[in-house]
C-alpha cells in the first residue's frame, strides 16, 4: 500500500480528483474491490455487491452527481432494494427487500456506489460485532494481515463494527451505521474513525430495521469530520415516510477549516469520571479539556445526576421495544420458517431457530417487563427515569438556567477502554458487555441529542482512543464545529495497514 493511498484520502479531495479526472470512478471502484478483498479476513462485509453491477452503474453515472460514484458501505440492517438484508440473523438470512431505506436511496440518488452490506451484532443487539451469523468482525488495528491469528485480535466494537472497519481500512469512504445506545460511536472509537449519531428525527429511519424505535438513529462513519459533514448534509431532513422526522427544513452544516471555539462553553460531566474508565482515556479527556480551554473556550464541570440509572433504564426500555419489534418475525410473510407442527408450534420453532440467544433473551425480558402486572414496576418506571435523564441533559444545555449550565457541548469519553481483545471479550455475556461499553453513549439516545466520537490519539498498545462530544437537539452545527476543532488539535493519523 502506497503512502498516497487514494482510498484513505478525505472524500472531499477525492471528489476533486474525480472532477479533475485525475482518477476515474471505474478505477476507484476497482481499487475499492481490491481493498475489500485484501481485508476479507476482517469479516467486515456480510455481502458485497457484484462488481459488474456496480461498474455498470458507474458508467451510466454522468459525473455531474454530488457523489460521483464514491464507494460507500451500509450496515446490514438498512433495507436495500434487491440486495439481501440479513441483520446478521438466521431469521433474515434469505431476505431481500423490495425497497431501499430513505438514507440509502438518498446516497445512491446522489451518485454514491453501494459496495456492500456490513457486519453487525444480530439485529444490532450488541457492542462487539461478534454475535453475527457470519462470525465476528476483526479490528484492523494491531491485526497481522499476513499471519492472522484465529484468537489473538481486537474486536471492532459494535454493533456497527463492519461499517467502522470498512471505513478504517479504506474499503469505503464512508458508511452508514445505526446508533441506538452507542452502536456507531463505540466501533468508531475502537477503529479510530469519526462516528456521528445525529439528533433523533434529523435522519429518516424508514427502511432501518427497528431495534428501539424511540432511540434508533442512522449514523455516519467516516475518516474525518469534514466527510461526516458532507454526508450529513445529504441525508438530513424530513421524510414523509417517517413521522418522527423533523418537520420543516434542516439547515446545512458549514464548518470552517480552522474553526474557533472561543464562544463555546464546554461541559465536563463529572459523573462520567467513573472508576472503570482507563487512566489513558482519563488522561486524554483532560488533555482535550485543556486544549478547548487554551483556545478560549470556557470549560465547566457539569452534573448529570441520573447517569448512573441510565444503563438499567436503557435495558428495560430496549427489551420492551425489542419484544414488540421482533413480534413480526413469525415465519409467515418472510424470514425463516420452520417446518411442520401446529401454528403456535411453528411460530415457536421458527423464532427459536431464527434468533440467537441474546435476541431471545431480550425478547423474553421485554415481554416480562410489559406484562400487565409488571408494566408499572419496570416499563413505566424506566420511562420516568428516561425523562429524568432527558431533563438532566436538557438543563445542561439550557442557556437560560442557573449555575454550571448553558453549555454548548459536552466533552466525555466514548467508553471505558480501548478495544478489548476478542479472547477476553468473548468470555463475557452479551448483556454484561453492553453494560460495560454503552455506559457513556446511551444517554444521548435517551435524550435524542446529537453526539460524535472523534479519534484523538493512540494508547500505549497503539490502539485508538476517541472522545465524545454531545450537543443539544438539532445543534449539529456546533457539535461538528467542536469536533472539527478537536480533530485539528489532535492530529490523529490514520495508519498504513500492512495488507
Amino acid at each position, binding site marked *: 500500500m502506497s503512502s498516497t493511498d487514494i482510498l484513505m484520502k478525505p472524500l472531499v479531495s477525492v471528489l476533486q480528483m474525480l472532477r479533475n479526472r485525475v482518477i476515474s470512478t471505474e478505477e476507484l471502484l476497482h481499487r475499492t474491490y481490491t481493498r475489500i478483498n485484501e481485508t476479507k479476513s476482517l469479516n467486515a462485509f456480510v455481502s458485497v455487491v457484484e462488481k459488474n453491477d456496480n461498474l455498470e452503474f458507474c458508467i451510466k453515472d454522468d459525473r455531474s452527481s454530488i457523489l460521483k460514484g464514491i464507494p460507500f458501505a451500509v450496515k446490514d440492517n*438498512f*433495507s436495500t432494494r434487491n440486495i439481501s*438484508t440479513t*441483520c446478521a440473523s438466521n431469521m*433474515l438470512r434469505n*431476505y*431481500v*427487500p*423490495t*425497497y431501499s*431505506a430513505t438514507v440509502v436511496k438518498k446516497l445512491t440518488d446522489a451518485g454514491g456506489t453501494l459496495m456492500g452490506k456490513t457486519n453487525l451484532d444480530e439485529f444490532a443487539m450488541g457492542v462487539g460485532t461478534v454475535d453475527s451469523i457470519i462470525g465476528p468482525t476483526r479490528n484492523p488495528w494491531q491485526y497481522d494481515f499476513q499471519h492472522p491469528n484465529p484468537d489473538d485480535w481486537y474486536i471492532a466494537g459494535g454493533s456497527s463494527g463492519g461499517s467502522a472497519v470498512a471505513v478504517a481500512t479504506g474499503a469505503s469512504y464512508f458508511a452508514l451505521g445505526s446508533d441506538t445506545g452507542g452502536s456507531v460511536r463505540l466501533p468508531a472509537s475502537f477503529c479510530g474513525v469519526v462516528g456521528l449519531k445525529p439528533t433523533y428525527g434529523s435522519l429518516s*429511519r*424508514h*427502511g*432501518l*430495521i*427497528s431495534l*428501539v*424505535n*424511540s432511540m434508533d438513529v442512522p449514523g455516519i462513519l467516516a475518516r474525518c469530520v469534514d466527510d461526516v459533514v458532507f454526508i450529513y448534509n445529504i441525508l438530513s431532513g424530513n421524510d*414523509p*415516510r*417517517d*413521522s*418522527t422526522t423533523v418537520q420543516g427544513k434542516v439547515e446545512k452544516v458549514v464548518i470552517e477549516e480552522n474553526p474557533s471555539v472561543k464562544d463555546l462553553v464546554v461541559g465536563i460531566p463529572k459523573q462520567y469520571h467513573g472508576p472503570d474508565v482507563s487512566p489513558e482515556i482519563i488522561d486524554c479527556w483532560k488533555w482535550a479539556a485543556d486544549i478547548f480551554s487554551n483556545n478560549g473556550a470556557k470549560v465547566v464541570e457539569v452534573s448529570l445526576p441520573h447517569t448512573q440509572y441510565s444503563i438499567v433504564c436503557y435495558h428495560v426500555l430496549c427489551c*420492551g*421495544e425489542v*419484544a*414488540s419489534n*421482533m*413480534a*413480526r*418475525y*413469525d415465519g*409467515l*410473510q*418472510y424470514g425463516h420458517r420452520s417446518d*411442520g*407442527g*401446529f*401454528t*403456535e*408450534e*411453528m*411460530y415457536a420453532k421458527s423464532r427459536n431457530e431464527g434468533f440467537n440467544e441474546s435476541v431471545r433473551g431480550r425478547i423474553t425480558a421485554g*415481554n416480562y417487563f*410489559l*406484562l*400487565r402486572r409488571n*408494566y408499572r414496576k419496570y*416499563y413505566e418506571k424506566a420511562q420516568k427515569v428516561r425523562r429524568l435523564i432527558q431533563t438532566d441533559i436538557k438543563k445542561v444545555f439550557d442557556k437560560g438556567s442557573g449555575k454550571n449550565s448553558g453549555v454548548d457541548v459536552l466533552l466525555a469519553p466514548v467508553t471505558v477502554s480501548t478495544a478489548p481483545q476478542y479472547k477476553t471479550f468473548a468470555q463475557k455475556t452479551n448483556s454484561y458487555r453492553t453494560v460495560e461499553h454503552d455506559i457513556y453513549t446511551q444517554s444521548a439516545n435517551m435524550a435524542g441529542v446529537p453526539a460524535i466520537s472523534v479519534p484523538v490519539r493512540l494508547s500505549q498498545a497503539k490502539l485508538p482512543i476517541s472522545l465524545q462530544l454531545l450537543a443539544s437537539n438539532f445543534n449539529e452545527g456546533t457539535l461538528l464545529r467542536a469536533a472539527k476543532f478537536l480533530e485539528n488539535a489532535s492530529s490523529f493519523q490514520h495508519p498504513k495497514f500492512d495488507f
Partner: protein
Amino acid sequence: MVPSLFMMQRFLFPGAIGCKPSFILVKRYNCSSQKNARLQDDRWIPTVGLEIHAQINSKSKLFSSAKNQFMAPPNSLVSNFDASIPGTLPVINKECVRKAVRTGLALNCKIQKTSFFDRKHYFYSDMPQGYQITQYKHPIAKNGYLHYPTADGSVVKRVKIEQIQLEQDSGKSMHEEGQVTLIDLNRAGVGLMEIVTAPEVSSAGDACAFLKELYGILMRIGTCNGKLAEGQFRVDANISIAQQKTKLGTRVEVKNISGFKHIHNVIEYEIKRQIRIVEEGGIVESETRAFDYETGFTVSMRDKEIKQDYRFMSEPNLPPLHVYDDSSVTSLSNPSSVINVDQERRNLPKLPADIRGHLIESFHLSFVEAEFLTNRNMENYFIEVMECAHNLNPTVVWNWIKMHVIAHMVEYNLSSIEECYVSARDLAALLLLLHNNEINAETAYLTFTTAIQTRQHPDKIVEENNWKMISDKETVTKLCEDAIATLQCTDAKALSGYDADKPKSKASKQAIKRVIMLVRKNTNDKIHTGVAKDVTMKLLNYKRTS
C-alpha cells in the same frame, strides 16, 4: 406494493388456529325448554355493553397508502407496511382521523386535542406485525352519549359512549378443510373506529335499537360504509346477568357479530344461557365466546380461554396525534393541513333523530314512516314532493315513494335517488294528476315507469299518450246513466242484485262492476273508474229509492 415473492398469494400452513367450538358446553346449557327460562327471566336483570368495530370509509388504509376496497383479488391491496416488512413505519391517514372526529362529534363526545397510539400484542396469523396499533390509553374521543328510540319509537333511551378509538383492522384467515389456512391481508391495516358503550343496555331489543341508530348516524355522516355482510360494522357484546341493578354479574364477551338479527339472537341466547347456568346452581365463567351462525348458539373460544396479556406499550413510531379548534388553528402556519374540530362540527349534516322529528312534526308521518325515509336518505325527496304539491296527502306520497320509487331503486340496485330519473318535481306532478282524478292509479304507475324509461315529464307522457281520463262529474254521470239504461234493456238481471242498504255486498259490487265495464267499453277505457264507481253507486241508489 409487495411483490408476490414475500406475500404468498395463497398461503398454506398446517395447523388449526381459531376457535374450535366446545360442543360439550353447548349441549349442557342449550336452552331447549324456553318456557321455563322465560318464567324466571323477570328475576334477572341483564346488562349489555357493546363494542362496535366500524370500518372507516376511507380511500386508503389507516397507516399506509394501500387501497381500502372490498372484493379485490387476495393480497392485492397490501403495502410493505401492511405486510409488516421490516423497516416500514406507520404514517397516519388524516382522512381517517377526520372521520373519527366527525363520529365523535355526532356521538356527543369530547374530542381529545391530543391522542396517542399504543401497541396491543398478540400472535395471530392474520395480524402480521404481531401487534395491533390502537388507542388504548388516550383515545381520540371520550365521554359521549347517544339518544336512541326503541324499536317502535315510543320511548327514547340514552347510552353513554365511553370512547372512540382509532385502530387497525386485521387481515382475514380462511380455515379450509384439510388443515390448511389461507391468509388474505387486503383488510389488514384498514382503519377501524372502535366505539365502546357503557354497560347500560338491558335487553336485546334495546341493544339492536341503539345499534340501528348508531348505524344510521355513521351512514348519514359518511364515516362508515356499513356493509354488514362485508364485516364493516361488527359488534362485540359483553353480557351479564344480576339480581340487583347495582351489582353486575360476571360478564361474557361474544365477539364479532354482524347483522342486527344475529346480534339480537346472540344477546337473547346468552342471557338465557346464563340464567339457566345460575338457576341450575352453576357459575357463569368469564370468557370469550363466538356466535355460531349455523346453530344460533354461542360457543366458547377455547384457544382464548387463557387470559391474554396484551403487553400494551405506546407506539413509538407515531408522534402524538393533534387536532385543533378555531382558536388554536390560527396560530398555525398552514391551518388547512390540520383537522379543525369546530370546522368539522359545522360541516356535520342533520342527524337522523332531527330528520325524523321534522318529518313527524311537519308532515304528521308516523315514527316508522319517518324512520323508513330517514334510513334511506329519502327525506329530502319526500319534502320536495310535498313542497311542490301542498295539498297531497303525506301518507299517499310516502306510500308512493316506498312502493314505487324505492322499489324501483332496489330492483335496479340504484344507490341514490339521483340515479332514478323521476325527480321530486316530476313525482309531485304525477301525484297531482292522480289526486285530481285525471288519471287513475294504474295509469299513474304506467306513467311512472314510462317516465323512468323516457325521462319525460309525466304531464307530457299523459298528454302524448292521451291517457287523461274522463273524470268530470257531468260527463261521467251521463256516461253511467247511458250504461245503466243499456243494461236495463239488454240484461236486466245484471243490476237486480244491487242492494242500496248493502252497497258492499258481493251482489252489489257485481252490479257496479257491470256498469263500469260497460262504461269502459263505451269510452275506449278512458273513464276514470274511481269516479265512475262513485257516480254509479249514487245513480243505482237513486234508482232504488225512487
